[in-house]
């Protein structure tokens, strides 16, 4: 579903944020992307979803290059950033309807999806309020709903559990499993190693823009805990 080949991104001044990173996310994968602050996770994620240009390498979604066919790739993808700044001047329902219009989701399907996920995250009653009145967690829930209503084949999340209450975090994990069972793929960054260890079937560890290790969770951690492996790798 997602193939990153020799991805390199430098910022002005020549600093390499990510250097020659390659990894593959298959259909049905829940792929965790872990690393320090400033390791290059968000840079990689932003390039994957087509909002950041990069110097070299290739990123393909469902066999299509994000550079050559950005719209086709974006139609298959949903992205939730680490800090979901949404349109404060819209109400929650207006925002979801806007996303529905952009993805041309048929009306009955749209209404059913919005109702299903809004009920699940318990924010139906708040959908008529302006987003500016929402808490961080409510914005996060709304962003997640907007990502799910168009049934993406690839869900890309940057620190998705930050700001979510325990129940909502549990719901998100359940939904991630459901999506993968239906053939979608998930690629997400996290700092919470316990979550990555329990939730993911594959993991990549990045440090200073370079990929240190990637593969199935068993391959990456062996007999040790993910925390021990991670600390060992980044202290090297």
């Amino acid at each position, binding site marked *: 579903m997602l193939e990153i080949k020799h991805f390199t991104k430098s910022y002005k001044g020549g600093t390499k944020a990510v250097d020659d990173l390659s990894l593959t996310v298959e259909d049905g994968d829940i792929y965790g992307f872990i690393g320090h602050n400033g390791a290059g996770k968000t840079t990689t994620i932003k390039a994957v979803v087509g909002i950041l240009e990069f110097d070299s390498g290739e990123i393909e979604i469902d066999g299509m290059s994000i550079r050559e066919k950005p719209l086709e790739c974006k139609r298959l993808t949903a992205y939730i950033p680490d800090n979901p*700044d*949404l*349109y404060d001047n819209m109400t929650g329902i207006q925002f979801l*309807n806007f996303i529905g*219009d952009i993805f041309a989701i048929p009306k009955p399907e749209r209404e059913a999806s919005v109702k299903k996920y809004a009920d699940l995250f318990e924010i139906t009653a708040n959908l008529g*309020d302006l987003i500016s009145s929402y808490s961080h967690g409510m914005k996060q829930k709304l962003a997640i709903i907007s990502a799910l209503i168009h049934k993406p084949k690839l869900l890309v999340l940057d620190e998705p559990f930050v700001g979510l209450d325990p129940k909502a975090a549990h719901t998100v994990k359940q939904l991630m499993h459901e999506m993968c069972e239906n053939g979608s793929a998930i690629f997400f960054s996290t700092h919470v190693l316990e979550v990555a260890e329990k939730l993911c079937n594959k993991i990549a560890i990045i440090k200073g823009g370079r990929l240190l290790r990637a593969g199935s969770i068993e391959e990456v951690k062996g007999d040790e805990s993910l925390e021990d492996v991670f600390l060992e790798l980044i202290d090297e």
Partner: protein
Amino acid sequence: MNNLGLLLKAYMRTSFGFNKARYTHEKRTKSTGMTVLMVFCYAVVIFAVFGICMGLMSSLAPLHTEYMVLNLMMVAASVMVLFTTIYKVNGTLFGFRDYDLQMSLPIRTGTLIASRILVLYILNALFVLAVMVPAGVAYAIIAQPAALFYPFFILTFLAIPLLPIIIATVIGTLIAVAASRVKRKSGLSVVLTVAAFMVFMIVWMTFWTNSGDIMLDFADVGDMVNGVVTSVYPLAALYGNAVGSYDVLSLLLFLLISFGAFAVFTAVVAKLFKRLNTSITTTRAAGDYKMTELRTQSPKKALYQRELKRYFSSSQYVLNTAVGPLLLVVVAIILLVSGVDGLGTYADIPGFDYFLTVNAPLAIAFFLALGSTTAVSVSLEGKNLWIVRSLPVDTRLVLKAKLNVSLVLYIPTIAVCGTLFNLALSPQPLHAVMTYALPLAYGLFIALFGLKANLDSPNFDWTNEVTVIKQSKPTLLTLLVGVVLVAVPAIFAAMAGSFVIVIAFAAVTALDILLYRSLMTKGAAQFERF
């Protein structure tokens, strides 16, 4: 450095892009360009005021009443401070974005308030400086006052912004508090702000229609103008006595009223600071939504609706860009109701009727050039930029939606005001057509050029949208280019006749085509690189 100094430093760093210019190497050239442009505009205002003051004072010199021009300029500066501060209060003194952060720091609330009031004062003092210093220099040259004038002038100068700031803060706060009490607070804020502006403009236009008399023969009407000015703003009489006649009592009263009122104002603000901030920033959430039928529309229309919602969500955005069309409507109505005579003694100038008829299309275009919605539309994406960048939408549709907001503002204005102008002036058929066609071409140009300017110099890291709307390079550049593009053919039309209007129409239409093509290719690519 004490806490007050630290807070002021933080404000300067975050609000004017100095920090960005210092630490972001690639932005240095752009920020230098912005500084040059702002200094240029500031210098133009100073020289213009100086020229006007020299002219008016010269006509008063035989009567030794040049001080009346200082009075007039003092009132003009006060009105300017009043008007601009109303829209700065919410966002500077109340409801500013880093309120939570600053209030959580171990800093006395009084210090925080002082820093915010000082910011308002400094910003306004710069306005007053641009008006009063050239006026003072002109006075020193023409009237050659005694040495006592200079300390009196400097002391009063420092006090000029105080009372207008107080009045503006009261009005601005009332608008913000009233707006915060309803669900659609941005909507009410837009309505109240525009209403306040319209009241101000109608008063101003009434004065303007009589200003022909003042310009033509200020010596004869100087006393009358001074009488009006001092009756409208009593502080002006004290000011005139202080700087014109070196009356110590007037000086002391002027300073006492200004600084005394300011001290009371500061004490009241200190008492209400937390309560007002809470009231203004608290958002109303009903939490009673029930799922209803959803209305679907095309992506193109959805993007356009998104732009419209953004536009009407900000009273500053609406006011700054609707100022031209609103003024135009007022002028067009005056013209239709009173005919050319309604424009006061300008109508008595020989050939003015013909001049106005020839230049009517350019006059309409001039008002459109006073504000561009597109010049800030890219920057206003701000932290939300990721949404439209990650969605599967053609970037050209995003840019077209931004252009459409401008056109929705311009086209009805041109249709209505063009008709009013044509009814009032009864021009030749070709000219009647040009009264619609030329402003349309100019309106399109302003929209296209504004968008290009913003794509060239975007700022997504703002903390207060006013810095983008009022103080950004694209806004100033679009205003400057638009006004020059109107002024050049206006000069030629006055000399060479009406065919210049047709040539201007053809030239601007050609520019529109070139700009549109460039935006749909290079502009779209620029947007995709942000």
